[in-house]
């Protein structure tokens, strides 16, 4: 029976997965600030694909049948390996239609969110009442690098929707007690700068998506992923990373870098916002307007994730009120960056 609304679709997923043998391959805990996420992976393949980039992911050996473990969100991650015939019947996508961002054109439900991930062939759904989410793909081997590098970001956006916490498109680093948030459009120098500084001893919290948390006294950033994407041009600027970078598929435009899973830093307060931009000449720091920060954060976050745009704008504004903000004008002399930051902020 085809779902008549998004809640129906979610219920079909929930019911379908409940009929499958309860033999998850791997459970793991993902701590994001004060929130605990329980991830359940059905097969080794999908655990390898979707779990390896997650910062601070802690595999756990066993959950007893009563599932007595405390969590704020449970994400069930299934692929079709060996179990496709038992998986829920896929709805007729042509009948319902899916827009360019994967929004499924079924009547909405206030507590259920569903979307289709184009290019991956995955269906994801979340219910705020049950606090369970499903990520279902038929073949995990086909998941592209840009999905395995930053998994579940849509589900996270749904989960944090009613909280002053939001995955945003930004890099983040910390060094000797100071945390720096670096939002910026693709091509702004954000990834190259964060990777370079991580090689200079800065703690890496992310280069593309991080979790902005304004729920406590001081603005805080939580690491989501310990992977980075780097293009060939940036690898020329940072040749030391060539040995660590790899392409998931040879034709991928970007390579992936993985950072050690034992990265001890998962969160840090934000002490300054740096907006990278490539200007040439000598690298220097200048004041930025609050609107520059909002423009650096909001449009890409809104358009990369199906999020509440008003919330993103509001959080970005609140962040600029609480944190000093600067342009990081990048020249060709990237080597001077650590000294420049030290002179400016320490």
């Amino acid at each position: 029976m085809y779902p008549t609304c998004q809640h129906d679709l979610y219920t079909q997923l929930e019911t379908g997965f409940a009929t499958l043998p309860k033999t998850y391959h791997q459970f793991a805990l993902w701590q994001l600030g004060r929130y605990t996420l329980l991830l359940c992976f059905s097969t080794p393949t999908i655990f390898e694909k979707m779990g390896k980039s997650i910062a601070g992911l802690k595999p756990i050996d066993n959950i007893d049948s009563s599932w007595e473990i405390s969590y704020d969100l449970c994400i069930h991650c299934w692929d079709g390996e060996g179990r496709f015939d038992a998986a829920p019947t896929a709805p007729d996508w042509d009948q319902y239609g899916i827009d360019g961002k994967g929004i499924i054109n079924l009547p909405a439900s206030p507590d259920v969110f569903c979307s289709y991930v184009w290019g991956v062939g995955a269906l994801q759904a979340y219910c705020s009442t049950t606090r369970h989410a499903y990520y279902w793909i038929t073949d995990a081997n086909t998941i592209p690098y840009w999905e395995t590098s930053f998994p579940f970001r849509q589900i996270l956006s749904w989960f944090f929707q009613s909280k002053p916490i939001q995955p945003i498109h930004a890099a983040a680093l910390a060094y000797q007690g100071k945390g720096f948030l670096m939002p910026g459009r693709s091509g702004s120098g954000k990834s190259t700068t964060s990777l370079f500084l991580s090689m200079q001893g800065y703690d890496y919290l992310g280069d593309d998506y991080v979790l902005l948390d304004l729920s406590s006294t001081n603005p805080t950033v939580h690491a989501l992923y310990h992977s980075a994407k780097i293009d060939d041009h940036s690898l020329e600027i940072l040749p030391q990373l060539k040995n660590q970078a790899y392409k998931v598929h040879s034709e991928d435009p970007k390579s992936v870098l993985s950072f050690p899973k034992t990265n001890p830093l998962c969160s840090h307060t934000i002490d300054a916002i740096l907006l990278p931009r490539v200007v040439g000449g000598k690298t220097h720091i200048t004041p930025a307007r609050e609107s520059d920060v909002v423009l650096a954060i909001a449009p890409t976050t809104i358009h990369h994730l199906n999020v509440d745009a008003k919330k993103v704008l509001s959080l970005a504004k609140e962040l600029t009120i609480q944190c000093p903000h600067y342009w990081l004008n990048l020249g060709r002399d990237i080597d001077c960056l650590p000294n420049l930051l030290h002179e400016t902020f320490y």
Partner: protein
Amino acid sequence: MFRRKSGSVVSETVDQEAIVVNLLNGKYHRMEGLACQLWDNLTEPTSLESLAQQCLLHATPISKQAIITFLFALNEESLIESDDESFFLQPNPVCNDPALCVESYDDMADLLLLDPIHDVDEAGWPNKNI
């Protein structure tokens, strides 16, 4: 009367600058100073006369043609609507005043408007088919 479009347009004002995002076409805009003030006024239905009154407080005179040009610019970007459907059928006076400048950015627009079936490659949205 003129007012912001609801639903498809979201906005936030920071330090006398308005950031406006059009969720339908992916474009976003920045307005500062007087332009930001007029945009803030458009949260509620506002008349041309009321906008002109607001401009009287500005340091330099702002002509009515400049205000109309500003409204045309907002309408062109699908940010506002008018009770009077014929208003935007009249010729645009094209009287640009730097105090009523609307900065527009369309680098996100291409991403948003991709046809996922035909315009993306095997890597899928948001990777355009080059």
